[in-house]
């Protein structure tokens, strides 16, 4: 009996330990920190200053990583604020060329393609600080200097999580250092409207634009090629945005289906009616040239033969 009691105790405690460690491993509902985060971000930092945009000059990438990491490690992962990243943004800051700022909502991949990696425009993801963290995930743990690779809190679990804190600070910094003509690309097919009245652009970017440095704000509202036209200039949420900016004293223009962006969207739907080039007729005539050179001759012979047959039948 003692033996069986002992065995049950062992089994019970084993189960308890397993469950406990499982709970310890997956504290949160979101994906954990991106593996090898330090190597990726330091690598991106050097990639940026040596290859992507050497004009920004010399930066100490290890120092940047330390400042980034210190913003959120050894703290409650549900209580990380934008200010915690202040040192990181101070160290990674660089000039944003005038007239090249591009703000956006609900169309990140499109914006990445459109900005051509800082050559046409410099969206947030094309700055050193944006490039550093784009598409990555991170969080720390209380009472530990380690990163949590198992799980991280989602926005629903913690409003003040490390990733959102970073992007809030990034948005504010980006807006503060933008100048000249500002561009805003909105998705006219987005559910809920092109301009989210609560979002990064509305809450963190507009309030930090520097009026005396900005000459004009150009809004572009572009629908998905096959998508519904939920919003457009002068309507719904776009009207709200236009009014807000004008009230703040900015000179504002708005364009529906801005052509250069339309071309990008047309890549996946080149035959759509919205994508027809008025000059495309001559190109279509040239058409594919097959290696089967005999092809066009064969066609001619066939047609002539059928024509001959037809005539013969008629005569008969």
């Amino acid at each position: 009996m003692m033996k069986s009691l002992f065995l049950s105790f062992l089994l019970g405690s084993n189960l308890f330990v397993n469950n406990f460690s499982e709970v310890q491993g997956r504290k949160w509902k979101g994906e954990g920190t991106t593996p090898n985060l330090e190597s990726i971000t330091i690598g991106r930092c050097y990639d940026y200053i040596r290859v992507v945009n050497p004009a920004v000059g010399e930066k100490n990438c290890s120092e940047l990583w330390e400042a980034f990491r210190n913003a959120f490690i050894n703290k409650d992962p549900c209580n990380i604020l934008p200010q915690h990243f202040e040192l990181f943004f101070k160290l990674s800051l660089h000039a944003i060329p005038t007239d090249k700022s591009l703000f956006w909502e609900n169309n990140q991949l499109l914006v990445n393609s459109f900005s051509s990696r800082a050559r046409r425009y410099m969206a947030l993801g094309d700055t050193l600080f944006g490039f550093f963290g784009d598409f990555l995930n991170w969080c720390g743990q209380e009472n530990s200097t380690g990163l949590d690779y198992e799980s991280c809190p989602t926005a629903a679990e913690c409003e003040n999580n490390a990733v959102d804190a970073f992007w809030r600070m990034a948005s504010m910094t980006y807006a503060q250092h933008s100048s000249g003509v500002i561009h805003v690309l909105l998705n006219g097919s987005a559910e809920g409207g092109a301009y989210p009245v609560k979002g990064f652009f509305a809450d963190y970017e507009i309030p930090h634009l520097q009026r005396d440095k900005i000459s004009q704000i150009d809004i572009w509202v572009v629908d998905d090629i096959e998508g519904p036209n939920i919003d457009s200039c002068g309507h719904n949420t776009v009207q709200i945005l236009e009014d807000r900016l004008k009230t703040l004293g900015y000179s504002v223009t708005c364009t529906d289906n801005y052509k250069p962006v339309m071309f990008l969207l047309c890549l996946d739907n080149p035959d759509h009616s919205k994508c027809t080039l008025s000059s495309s007729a001559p190109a279509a005539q040239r058409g594919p040239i097959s290696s089967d050179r005999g092809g066009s001759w064969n066609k001619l012979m066939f047609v002539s033969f059928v024509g001959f047959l037809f005539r013969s039948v008629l005569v008969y």
Partner: protein
Amino acid sequence: MPSQRGSARRRQRCVLLAGIAILLIALVLAAVLASVLTGSKEEANPEPLRWQGRGTTRNLREIVLGRCYSYLAEGHAELRDKDCLKIWESLKAAFVHKNPCNATTEDYRPLMELTSHPVPCNESLFWSRTYDLVHLYSKCNHHFLTLEDTFLGYMLDGLSWCGDPSAPGINYESCPKWSECERSSGSVFWKMASKMFAEAACGVVHVMLNGSIEAGAFRTSSVFGSVEIFNLNPDKVSEIRIWLMNDIGGPQSDSCSGYSIKKLRNILEERNFKITCEDNYRPVQLLQCVHNPDHPDCNLCISSTEAP
């Protein structure tokens, strides 16, 4: 009296000779000392060889490792077992301390083996003189992969590296341009990677050529013309589709019916490939229009509306 003067003169001559001898010895000693000193100085700080191209990218290690882990983080199942540190070590071993004009394929074989992965059929996209456009296209359309979108190409695209026989073994000042030596580190690497990329291609393959180049869209001296077309496998590749792109508003120096494409067709047909060619393939032309929206060739049939 005369013998005393004679001996005085003899003494003077001796002193003079001794003085000259001492001076000569001193000079010789100085020369020897100088050469010994400069010789050891050279050994301590030898100058790297001088070339015409840009030197090794600084922080090459961090950049390569970062790109490696970044690519793996995208979640490609076929790359699960790749070891980024091992990959970096094999790249280093390929060129550090070596003369950058004497690179061999054997230098890069371990690196190639560590990074190879299959490319899905119908996705290989080759190119010649269309670097910007072809990569913009492959980034927008994920059904196509250029060499620079594969694991190895992604890690090393846009970077420069070369070794040097003297310490520290890496030349950060300059590297040989491809035209400077037949077997430069860079050209041996990229030709080998291109060869493997061509060998791995299957199904329908595409190539984007530049019809605004005066010398012709297809050149036998290019990597495409000298390496890739000869390593495509006619048993695996069902068709080769050429997209001949002219710059928007640029010269129409070449076209599908031009001489250089005829030459390309002859080479490929001899190897039993089926070839088609299209001038200004629409989707890619649309991409060109993103950057030239106001050109007459880029008029969309529906016009945009502007509201003040």
